């Protein structure tokens, strides 16, 4: 896989994003990312997701990463203690990129990689759903996505341009979720939701 070197950079309070072969530093956990067509986690949506994930208790938990791209959120989740996860992306190249990055981090056994859409996910009852995709897609898949999370589970949604933020929140609230945190950034927003425990 084509990759290029880049300068390591910190993400959140705990992580450092680094290219393969970078020398570890004290106080930061490295997420090794080869930089290809899908970036390596510099985007404000990725950074905000990682910051939000650091505050969640992922120990021993399962997750679905919809629109997984480079796999960076899945890798961060595993390094934060998650037990297993499913990554899915519609782009075959992205799936390959995620698989490659997971290998670099030695965690491919805990991750199932799929190429497709939410319809291709048969599993349910995930503890967490991560979806850093576009706001209009989040609106379109709301019911199905909420259906993948177990009662009282957590959804972390990002990639939501400002203009979609209100409707994403309203739509997911209507689908039985409570907004725990809504973070508006320069151009995008990230929403953390908790699914109703009785759904």
């Amino acid at each position: 896989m084509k990759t290029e070197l880049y300068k390591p950079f910190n993400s959140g309070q705990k992580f450092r994003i680094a290219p393969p072969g970078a020398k570890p530093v004290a106080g930061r956990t490295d997420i090794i990312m080869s930089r290809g067509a899908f970036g390596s986690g510099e985007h404000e949506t990725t950074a905000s997701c990682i910051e939000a994930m650091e505050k969640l208790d992922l120990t021993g938990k399962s997750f679905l990463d919809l629109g997984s791209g480079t796999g960076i959120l899945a890798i961060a989740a595993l390094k934060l203690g998650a037990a297993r996860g499913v990554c899915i992306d519609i782009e075959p190249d992205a799936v390959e990129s995620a698989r490659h990055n997971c290998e670099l981090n030695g965690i491919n056994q805990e991750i199932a990689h799929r190429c497709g859409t939410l319809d291709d996910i048969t599993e349910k009852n995930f503890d967490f759903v991560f979806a850093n995709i576009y706001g209009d897609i989040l609106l379109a898949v709301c019911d199905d996505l909420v259906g993948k999370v177990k009662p009282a589970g957590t959804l972390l949604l990002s990639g939501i341009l400002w203009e979609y933020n209100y409707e994403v929140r309203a739509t997911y609230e209507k689908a039985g979720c409570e907004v725990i945190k809504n973070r508006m950034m320069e151009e995008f927003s990230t929403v953390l939701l908790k699914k109703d425990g009785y759904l």
Partner: protein
Amino acid sequence: MNQPLCSILMAVRNEEKYLPAALESILRQTLTDWQLVVIDDGSTDNTTEILKSYADRDSRIQPVYQPSNGLVPALILGTQKCYSDFIARMDGDDICHPQRLEKQYRFLQDNPETSLVATNIRYFPSHIVQGGMRHYEHWQNSLVTHDLILRDLFVESPFTQPSIMYRKTAVESVGGYRDIGWAEDYDLWLRLALSKHQLARIPETLFFWREHADRLTHTADEFSLDAFRRCKAFHLKKSLLKDKRSVTLWGVGIEGKAWRKVLLDIGIDVHHWIDIDPGKIGQTIHGAKVAEPDSLKPGCGPMLITIGARGARDLVREKCQELGLIESKDYICVT
């Protein structure tokens, strides 16, 4: 009430579906000293209740109900209730970036010669925004200076109405909103521009324009292509075509012929057509000869360019420049 830094003027009718999102985007503004004047123009859905519940919680939101009377009367009534000289227009189905008001207000403060300032816009939701709309968005956002706005003033409406902030006194000096059978906003921009008011755009995306089938621009006669042509012709007659009895039209297509009709209605005939199609050159159409572009000379009379196909306008401009013709004097693009 005390005079706020900025008044927001909104007119709504049956906007229950999108209104909360629009209001929330106003409530998130970094400039907080505003009043929102919302004329509820005879809504029959839940709009009136939504407005009341927001107004109960925030005294800056001031709904005014009137029996259905139309957009222009609503805007005129709303303007009377705006206490600031800085009026930001907004619609009940769109979204403002949180810094929109602050940046526009600061721009007008810093540029006292400017009467109206728009921002870059972005259509949404993206899955229903078609190619033509993206093209319009791109074109509008490219008009970043007063001169560029003036150059393309007759091509299309250079501003998305709910994205603008203007000086109330400037708009009142040209007669304010009026309803004479075509888009009230475009009519207003044309009057401001032709009265030498400075127009500007902040080249940042501070406004999000919602596309949906019920939008007034898709349903009202005032926004038909023919109404736009009549509006342009009306204002051209007061500017480039003042005291002219005939013009040259570049483009012997459907658009060119539609322009001929509109011009005839205001007493202006076509004395020449220009076209690049060898099959048409030399023909006589509606009593006027079709000539090739190379026959044009500076000062040979006003010409309207009715070629609007993507990319073609730029080619026509290049040719006119090559021939020494001056835009807005010898010719103007009208589509």
